[in-house]
């Protein structure tokens, strides 16, 4: 009788524990779908951004590595071969006809060929690339300093973000990749528009002819296949309003961690 009761109790307790577990899991998954709840989770991104900005200073340089540290295999992520016909035509001619448009909140909008960009102040750096998925690779990048380009087109004081519009469509909807960084990031000494990787012209898989390197953020911030740069005061009217393709899919705009 006693044993029977004990078994019963154990059975009931096990049942309760199981139900609580299931309830918790489905509850958490339901919370993930609830915009009011995810807004609470999102406060962490704001806290991280303010904390990191306060603790790191504007111009701390990302660690630079030696030639010997360069990854034998640098993984290419996202688009590795844009299907856009206009892009493919440009690629066939070695990007001879490609021009970077720079506009928005600038005093002197303009467009630049690859050889014109190569005449602007450049920087070469061997840095680590951290993907949001968790892996890291080290590569050598050479490119025009974004600060030099912004000085040339004379960014207007009300500009707060630099938007990068790209040639690669990410899904069947045809939405093209785009990204944004703030001016602290844009004027950082290591922020470059790279046209060379590991001493060779930037390969298509890594974003030819021009990709962003923003070394203190995660890989998805570093837009590839850049066609147009625009300075804006806010990006709420662009795309889904979150500042980038992956941001529109729910990733943080602040990708410092």
């Amino acid at each position, binding site marked *: 009788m006693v044993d029977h009761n004990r078994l019963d109790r154990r059975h009931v307790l096990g049942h309760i524990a199981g139900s609580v577990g299931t309830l918790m*899991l489905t509850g*958490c998954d339901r919370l*993930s779908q609830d915009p009011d709840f995810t807004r609470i989770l999102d406060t962490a991104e704001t806290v991280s951004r303010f904390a990191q900005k306060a603790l790191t200073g504007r111009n701390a340089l*990302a660690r630079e590595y030696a030639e010997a540290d360069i990854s034998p295999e640098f993984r290419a992520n996202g688009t590795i071969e844009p299907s856009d016909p206009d892009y493919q035509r440009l690629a066939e001619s070695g990007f001879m006809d490609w021009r970077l448009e720079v506009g928005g909140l600038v005093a002197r909008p303009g467009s630049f060929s690859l050889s014109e960009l190569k005449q602007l102040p450049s920087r070469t750096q061997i840095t*680590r690339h951290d*993907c949001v998925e*968790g892996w890291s690779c080290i590569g050598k990048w050479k490119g025009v300093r974004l600060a030099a380009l912004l000085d040339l087109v004379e960014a207007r004081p009300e500009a707060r973000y630099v938007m990068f519009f790209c040639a690669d469509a990410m899904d069947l909807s045809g939405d093209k990749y785009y990204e944004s960084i703030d001016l602290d990031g844009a004027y950082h000494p290591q922020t470059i528009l790279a046209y060379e990787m590991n001493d060779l012209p930037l390969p298509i898989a890594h974003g030819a002819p021009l990709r962003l390197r923003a070394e203190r953020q995660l890989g998805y911030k570093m837009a590839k296949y850049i066609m147009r740069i625009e300075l804006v005061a806010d990006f709420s009217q662009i795309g889904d309003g979150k500042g980038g393709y992956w941001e529109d899919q729910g990733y943080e705009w602040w990708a410092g961690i």
Partner: protein
Amino acid sequence: MPNGRRIYRHRFWVRMTHWVNVVCMTVLLMSGLQIFNAHPALYWGNISHFDNPVAAIGTFPDWVTLPGSQWLAMGRRWHFFFAWLFVTNGALYALLAIASGHFRRDLVPTPSALRQIGHSIRDHLRLRFPKGEEARHYNVLQRLAYLAVLCVLCPLIVLAGLAMSPQLDAAYPWLLSIFGGRQSARTIHFLCAFSLLGFVIVHLLMVLVSGVWNNLRSMVTGWYDTGETHG
């Protein structure tokens, strides 16, 4: 249930921070496994040698991840929110534990207790636990386990997590140096998580075998039944 003398064993802030920590560690582990599943391999050093990982253990099943399907962006949101809560809660606990003397009095083992450690290990293996007045205090194995978690594993897992931030690495390159690179930091973060899980499993076993309802009540209400009759 013997109706013995009840003693007030856990102060309010100890109970409070304990249960907040239970929620944080559960969410952090499950969302951490979600994040791990986005690239289920571990490496040593600065970079990922894709063809030579330290471990490629495959993905964890959906029922242990948060959210319960492949959804990295949402896993990261849960993880970072509860990471802030975990650190705040931990800092609050550390502050109160030091200021109140809880740390020195209840957690640091006395030299005489340390000498008795063999005795304590034998008692634990026989599942014989302190009763009466002795149950008022943490025994020497408890103290050492709690100290290892509080002073080694928790700070280490937070530091290893921060070392994965490219923004913080730029300002504090020593974060990378102490772990020997970002991928090492990621591996150590993972190992710390499973060490903490190991601690929690042993902790729960000990709670179960040393009087589960009495232990639970004392961690909820503070009151622990010593098992002694009123004298």
